[in-house]
């Protein structure tokens, strides 16, 4: 088991390196705006600038720059933000936490809804419940995420039940932990809801499709022939057998969710990685851009790794191979 996980983790790490190299190569292809003095924050003194130049090898060829960045990352700084005059990590970490605050609940909720619904729809395929389900998901799928985000904002504005954007109210911090948590919760409802709506349809469809494909297989029909009750067939036999495709779907859903949440964060002013990335792009703040993208990739790799663990737990064939 450990060996299997170690192998998967090593693979993930390799991918992360590959991604970072790709990003640096992209940076190489960019025109020189990133380094022009005019863009740099005027608060940075000339000496600091010179020191930064050396520290991050900004005038050096690409491999040197990459190496310096790696060293800086190992130290936990992940480069330097020219726009804010601080190591990139100080910007990245709080944002990462905030994005997780949205993504993890959204992921859990999406799957908790998708699996039972998808299995039911697969089990009652062809009947009116399933047809309703299909039309519903089609409609949801066709809704652009942008619209969903704007509608969420609209709901907040019109009904006044939920706060409009942002993560916390101004004086929430002062009122004690419990009130602060409640305040946070209220702020989370709409963004999380929007993310769930934006990604639910795809996950639902895939769950249903995986189960349907399985229902036709010989062992399902044999189990039916042995008189097993329908509920047991669906949840005790089809679902475990579907573990393999569903868990790969899990990895995909993490990617989907992260992408959707970027947009929602921006529209609803939730201080996550998304808005930071956008700001950094507009400000040509190179290291923050790379850091933000790397961070989202780390989340995805972590999600995939979690998927691998789940697969190991649920599929005996993987256990044997490992």
């Amino acid at each position: 088991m450990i060996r299997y996980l170690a192998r998967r983790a090593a693979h993930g790490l390799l991918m992360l390196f590959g991604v970072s190299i790709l990003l640096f190569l992209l940076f190489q292809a960019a025109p020189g705006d990133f380094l022009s003095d005019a863009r740099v924050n005027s608060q940075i003194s000339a000496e600091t600038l010179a020191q930064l130049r050396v520290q991050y090898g900004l005038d050096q060829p690409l491999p040197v720059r990459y190496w310096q960045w790696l060293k800086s990352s190992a130290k936990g700084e992940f480069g330097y933000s020219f726009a804010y005059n601080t190591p990139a990590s100080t910007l990245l970490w709080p944002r990462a936490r905030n994005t997780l605050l949205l993504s993890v609940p959204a992921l859990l909720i999406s799957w908790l809804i998708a699996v039972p619904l998808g299995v039911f729809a697969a089990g009652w395929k062809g009947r009116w419940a399933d047809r309703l389900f299909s039309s519903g998901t089609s409609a949801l799928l066709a809704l652009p995420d942008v619209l969903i985000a704007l509608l969420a904002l609209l709901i907040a504005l019109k009904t006044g039940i939920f706060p409009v954007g942002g993560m916390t109210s101004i004086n929430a911090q002062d009122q004690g932990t419990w009130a602060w948590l409640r305040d946070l919760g209220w702020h989370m409802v709409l963004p999380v809801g929007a993310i769930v709506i934006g990604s639910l349809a795809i996950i639902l469809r895939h769950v249903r499709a995986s189960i349907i494909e399985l229902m036709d297989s010989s062992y399902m029909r044999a189990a039916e022939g042995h008189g097993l009750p329908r509920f047991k067939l669906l949840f005790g036999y089809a679902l475990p057998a579907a573990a393999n495709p569903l868990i790969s779907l899990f990895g995909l859903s993490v990617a989907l969710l992260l992408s959707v949440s970027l947009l929602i964060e921006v529209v609803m002013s939730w201080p996550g990685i998304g808005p930071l990335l956008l700001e950094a792009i507009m400000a040509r703040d190179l290291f923050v851009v790379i850091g933000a993208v790397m961070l989202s990739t780390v989340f995805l790799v972590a999600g995939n790794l979690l998927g691998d663990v789940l697969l190991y737990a649920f599929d005996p064939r993987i256990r044997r191979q490992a």
Partner: protein
Amino acid sequence: MTSGKLSLPKPEPLLRVSALSVDYDAVGGNMVHAVRQLDLEIAGGESVGVLGESGSGKSSLALAIIRLLPKNACVVSGRIDYRGRSLAEFSPAELRAMCGAEVSLISQEPALALNPVLSLGRQLADVLLAHRKFTRQEVKARCNEMLCQVGFDDPGRVMRAYPHELSGGQRQRVAIAQALICRPKLLIADEPFSALDAATQAEILELLQRLKRDLGLAMLFITHNAGTVAALADNIVIMREGEAIARGTMETLQASGDEYVQGILFPEKSLANATHKEQPLVSGAPLLQVQGLSKKFVQKRMLSRKQFVVQSLEGIDLELAAGSTVAVLGRSGSGKSTLARCLAGFEAPDLGEILLDGNPVTEKKRDPRWQTKVQMIFQDAATSLNPRFTARQVVAEPLEIARWKSEAERMARAMKLMEEVGLDPEWAARLAGEFSGGQRQRLSLARALAADPKLLIMDEALSGLDMPLQAQMVRLLMELQARHGLTYLYISHDLNFISLFAREVVVMNAGRIVERTTPEKLAESMHPATRELVEASERLHAPGMEAAV
């Protein structure tokens, strides 16, 4: 064998099928009448064998009884009565209670009948619990008992195991245990052997015989292999194209004068009349010479130092005289397929020489003129043809590649070849994917002939077909051989029909040739590998029938 026919008034039969008709809604809007007006009765404790070619509707019959017909099939008319009550009157709950507890099904492919992610013990217990209430200890005890009855020595280990940890034969035993654990009255076995190799088939057959005796099971046993029917069934029904065309015990049917019945029961006999064992002996240099052929496969895992070396072939020497047929026999894994692929030029051997008419044909020293002289017919008809090609395109492909003459002449030759292999040239424009398995093998044959070969290698080419079809194909092959002077290398794991058309038999085991003999002398051989094959074959063909060997 006990006869089910007595002159006393019969008690209510366990199962009665009356005028059953089942239709399939095939793609393209065609209605296929799978079963037509079929009548059938099974009394308690009686076993009835349904014999027929593929496509005769036997499986549909089985599925209709256990209500497992696929979505595009329906029972059009007739009724099925279980213990006097029509199945149509059963409520869904009653039907569910019946399936698995009173009537059980063993299906064709044991490997696929078990859920791969659940332990076998769990799957066994679930069937039990679906029908009766038991405590955990009782469940465990019953499962263990059942597993012992089907021949497992260590039921505890099997209970904890997963399907992929067992062999095909073992999985079939577990599937049988699952079917019988609720002590059903009627067992429906739908081709339970076809996916297993000969030796395993014999084992399962014995098991079923024993269970029938010990448990007093009524059985509906469906197959295309007349030999197994004889071993298991009290009464036999022969189906053809959805209808029951003959019934009776083995003795009464054997005495029947109907040609089709005889053909189904004794496929070898029908062939024996049509063959001429005296093949014109071609003297002179042998067509094919193989010397010292060796090949090994190395499997490596990524990032691991371990290497898996499989010595697939070692020191193979072989000679084929032109116009003759040599059969290569062996269990799966003996290296026969690798040999075939080397001879056909799909793999390069590590050591050794292959000479065709004196010219080398190993991949490195390939002489292009001889490339097409050796052709191969594959086992899996489904993947040997591009399903989106028309039949004409398939057969004409070698001519197309060689740019033989003109387009029109190529097509004409293709149609002629189709006729020669017994396919209606009207179907030339149909897509290859629409043909049945046997028809696709014929197309493969026609295509191979188009390349004008001297040597045809048949790599288990007939193994996937049912017995009557195999007989037809063998007859066709022999006709073609006589007409075109072909040489055959026939590779197989079972001995059907070998005596009828092979002049020499070569037995392989673990990559080597262990025996060379003639079909007649095969039964007397003392070599363990050969004996294994022979005994397996004999067990599948009941005594009293002319065995293949």
